[in-house]
């Protein structure tokens, strides 16, 4: 750390002043004169044929400007929404790719599917008109239950995907794995459900668009995590507006957790309709629309088996998963349960043989796509659940079994049997530290004390690995991804010496404006208050890939460092001229250029001024100005890892679970701002515990209605559900990026469900409970206890 505000410092978030004083500028805050307001009529049925749509009465309602239906898009030759990742099945065939019309044409496929867009002078008038639209539906049977989605006779979602199968994909060699199982001393089997989640970003999705008739330029404001990618998809695949005629701006965005990566029907419609309506259009989702139409997360049904030798060494792992895609393939949906899931199944262990088979299924439910962790929480849940179950079955301490199978620190870089090559890590000290902080030794005494109060106390481990910092572009291309995964940066000095960092990453709560500024402050010595981070506007920032997959610092931050290196290199030439020295003798340190071995020096500000006012300047050798660009494509993923220990108490009378201790020790590589990292870990743990104990999207299995369609029925974790977390770090710097950083945005959510559920099972197994699915709600836990008591009585 070079100063109180440089790398490693707990700098307060500069963006928080506007967020906490209500002066952030979100899409819905945009003052657009002559604006109209859009409202979307959505399907009330999970599956129905549209026999007719009659808009005649609605069109005459007060304030109505325009009404569009799917047929208008067909007539205008608008393309469908796309899935941007081609996964090849086990026979090498690309996944089934059913049409995804922006608005339904003749069939609706989930409750919330878009049927009509009403544009009016006010939101209420648009909504009034929506009620006057008459849609004649022929309601069909719905396929809602994932476990039965691929069964013969399940209602078909798309004719292009017979039997609702999108792909049948595999990784690993099944015969080798089967041979290892045949020799195993012990096999642990596990069936589990990874429950479906609804993202619930604090700010609902929103879009606004304006069309400039004079230039033919469109501007789309969207709550996007990746405005350049959204523009690319809309331009190249959906609307055909040339990229240079479409500006996408993602201003302040209130959370995303993945759900704002994708290209959605509503923002597409708002953009398309802006030129037809001839006035700006604004749309903000109501919370119930968010529940119904934001892409949901997780939703797997899995059978797993782990083969062990008599000493507990893992011999092989076999995993079969059915993954829910929902009714349409969202932007990156196909990659989540394959390349972001099965490639992580080695975890922190030396398991030599792994086979995974993933079948992706269509159902009459909202599309499912990446959600905080995207595939990696699902993988971690499988591994860490089955490892703890194996430990219990073989009567080996859960920590001991893990330690026995950890990849040794000397084995890095470590090639797993499922494609990834881990770059760095040292797992035993992490679990040791976690056990020390959690006072694992004292647990049995605490369990006994809890029992005296009538409580069942349990403890659970989760040792996770994740691959993030997405990603080497060539690897992504080989795996079927449709985009590059580099990141861009531009460092633009102004003549007076202050600086703008333009980044292709996007901040929707992560604190980039502070973290990225710390990088430049540390590297170039510019005071924090003279640094501005600019992001989220395709017209001002270089093309960038946006923020997801814990990539912003590892990839975007590295691009910023590269651009800063260019600033220093150019600055040295200018400084050499000013100091009448040779470039080779000029050094840069703490914001000052110096001639080595002399007291000659010139501060960066003076060099910048000279670059913009080049009166005394090496003008024949160096261009004026100081505005450097860099693009950074990482050499590998980054591999954060850690161990979490959850300790909880269950009230067996009510089934209520209380988390009493939660420890997380992580390896995030080098850390730029520990306070922001802690915030990310806290939020991630809370989301993961939410999945384990509270959250669950529930559809009625026959009608496909979303039962958990509001906060009245969808349980969100709250502050009073948690103790203070105990966090710590054991770092191994990433060897292949200039900052040595890994990524911390998803880790908490990736690891914590297994830690919680292992603790639940640890607490309940003494009374005979064998398995509890997530979410372990009070009802679910109580019923599990009742079931065990009934069994014991029989």
């Amino acid at each position, binding site marked *: 750390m070079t100063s109180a505000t440089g790398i490693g410092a707990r700098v307060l978030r500069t963006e928080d002043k506007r967020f906490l004083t209500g002066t952030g500028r979100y899409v819905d805050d945009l003052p657009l004169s002559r604006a109209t307001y859009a409202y979307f009529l959505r399907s009330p049925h999970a599956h129905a044929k549209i026999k007719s749509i009659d808009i005649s009465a609605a069109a005459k309602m007060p304030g109505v400007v325009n009404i569009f239906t799917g047929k208008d898009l067909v007539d205008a030759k608008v393309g469908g929404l796309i899935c941007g990742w081609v996964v090849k099945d086990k026979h090498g065939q690309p996944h089934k790719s059913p049409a995804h019309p922006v608005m339904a044409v003749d069939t609706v496929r989930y409750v919330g599917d878009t049927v009509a867009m009403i544009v009016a002078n006010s939101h209420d008038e648009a909504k009034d008109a929506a009620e006057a639209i008459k849609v004649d539906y022929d309601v069909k049977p719905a396929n809602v239950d994932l476990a039965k989605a691929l069964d013969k006779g399940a209602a078909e979602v798309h004719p292009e995907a017979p039997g609702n199968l999108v792909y049948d994909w595999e990784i690993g060699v099944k015969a080798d794995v089967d041979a290892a199982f045949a020799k195993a001393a012990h096999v642990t089997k596990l069936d589990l459900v990874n429950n479906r989640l609804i993202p619930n970003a604090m700010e609902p999705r929103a879009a606004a668009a304006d069309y400039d008739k004079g230039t033919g330029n469109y501007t789309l404001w969207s709550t996007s995590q990746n405005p350049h990618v959204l523009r690319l998809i809309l331009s190249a695949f959906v609307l055909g507006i040339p990229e240079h005629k479409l500006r996408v701006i993602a201003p302040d965005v209130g959370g995303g957790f993945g759900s704002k990566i994708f290209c959605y029907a509503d923002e597409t419609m708002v953009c398309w309709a802006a030129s037809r309506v001839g006035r700006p259009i604004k749309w903000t989702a109501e919370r119930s629309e968010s529940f119904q139409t934001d892409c949901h997360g997780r939703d797997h049904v899995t059978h797993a088996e782990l083969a062990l030798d008599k000493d507990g060494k893992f011999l092989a792992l076999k995993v079969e998963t059915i993954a829910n895609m929902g009714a349409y393939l969202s932007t990156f949906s196909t990659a989540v349960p394959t390349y972001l899931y099965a490639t992580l199944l080695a975890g922190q262990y030396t398991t030599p043989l792994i086979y995974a088979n993933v079948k992706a299924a269509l159902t009459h439910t909202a599309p499912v796509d990446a959600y905080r962790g995207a595939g990696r929480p699902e993988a971690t849940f499988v591994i860490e659940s089955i490892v703890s179950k194996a430990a219990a079955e073989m009567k080996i301490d859960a920590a001991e079994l893990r330690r026995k199978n950890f990849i040794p620190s000397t084995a890095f870089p470590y090639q797993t049997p499922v494609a990834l090559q881990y770059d760095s890590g040292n797992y035993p000290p992490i679990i040791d530290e976690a056990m020390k902080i959690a006072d694992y030794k004292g647990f049995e005494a605490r369990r006994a004390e809890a029992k005296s109060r009538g409580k069942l106390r349990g403890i659970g481990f989760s040792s996770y690995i994740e691959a993030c910092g997405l990603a080497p572009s060539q690897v992504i291309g080989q795996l079927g991804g449709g985009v590059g995964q580099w990141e861009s940066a531009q460092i633009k000095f102004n003549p007076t010496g202050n600086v703008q960092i333009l980044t292709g990453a996007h901040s929707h709560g992560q604190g980039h404006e502070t973290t990225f500024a710390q990088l430049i402050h540390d590297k170039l010595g510019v005071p924090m208050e003279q640094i501005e981070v600019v992001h989220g506007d395709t017209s001002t920032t270089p093309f960038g890939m946006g923020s997801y997959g814990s990539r912003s610092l590892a990839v975007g931050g590295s691009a910023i460092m590269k651009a800063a290196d260019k600033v220093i290199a150019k600055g040295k030439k200018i400084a050499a001229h000013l100091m009448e020295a040779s470039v080779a003798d000029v050094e840069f340190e703490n914001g000052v250029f110096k001639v080595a071995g002399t007291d000659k020096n010139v501060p960066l500000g003076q060099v910048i001024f000279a670059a913009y006012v080049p009166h005394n300047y090496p003008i024949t050798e160096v261009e004026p100005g100081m505005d450097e660009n860099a693009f950074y494509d990482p050499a590998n993923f980054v591999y954060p890892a850690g161990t979490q220990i959850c300790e909880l108490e269950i009230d067996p009378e*009510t089934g209520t679970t209380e988390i009493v201790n939660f420890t997380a020790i992580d390896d995030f590589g080098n850390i730029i701002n520990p306070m922001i990292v802690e915030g990310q870990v806290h939020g991630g743990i809370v989301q993961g515990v939410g999945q384990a104990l509270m959250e669950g999207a*529930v559809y009625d299995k026959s009608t496909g209605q979303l039962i958990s369609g509001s906060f*009245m*029925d969808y*349980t969100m974790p709250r502050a009073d559900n948690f103790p203070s977390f105990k966090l710590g770090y054991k770092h191994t710097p990433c060897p292949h990026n200039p900052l040595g950083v890994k990524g911390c945005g998803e880790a908490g959510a990736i690891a914590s469900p297994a830690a919680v559920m292992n603790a639940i099972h640890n607490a309940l197994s003494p009374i005979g409970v064998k398995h509890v699915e997530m979410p372990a709600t*009070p009802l679910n836990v*109580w*019923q599990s206890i009742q079931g065990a008591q009934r069994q014991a009585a029989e």
Partner: protein
Amino acid sequence: MYDFSYHRPKSVADAVGLLKSKPEARAMSGGMTLIPTLKQRLARPSDVVDLGGVKELAGIKVEGNNVVIGGMTRHADVASSAEVKASIPALAYLAGHIGDPQVRNRGTMGGSVANNDPAADYPGAVVALNATVTTNTGKHAADSFFKGLFETALADGELITSISFPKAEKAAYMKFPNPASRYAMVGVFVAKTASGVRVAVTGAGACVFRVKAMEDALAKNFTSAAIKDIKIPADGLNSDIHGSAEYRAHLVGVMARRAVDAANK
């Protein structure tokens, strides 16, 4: 929400006059149920009569052996009232655990009782304490006030002006909150007053109900042990994704025992 005419009368008489002259009018006290209902377009009143301007309806006073609380008294005021805390601490505790701070500072006792949401907390207290509901036209005994799901004995144009709670010798309220909404999934109010022991259950059924077997047992022996073997039948209890009828029936027993223990502390 749909358009409606908004009124803010200053007296009960004016409010009642408005409600009677407009057949599709709805009275609004705190609006904690009505406003969300309007926003979701689930109600379409022609007129909303806001009782917030009727000063005479709010307030807490002790009259002899009773605590009398005005219909427009906010939950937060009940929770923090020195009179309520001194006379019936269980009632202050209940009020302090309704919804969240925003709801407690807007929602009113009269609104909650008149709405008779099956998961509301106050009906449990009204019945268990054998309170009297006073309206602009008369008085209702607690037992005959709550009629069923969102149904009460209130006639059209009848407003709750106050509720009179007898002081309790012993009383406690135990709530098992719905994990999502934190409404009462099961709430049990146990009270020992001059009129005897009462056990009132809210949240579990369509409407608040009493558990006679528990009351009889507690009248003889006011300890949790006295009711530990009393089973509540699950028939007719609410069932949803958060709790089956069997679970709710079980929780009635647990919450009742815990309420008795708390009342004895």
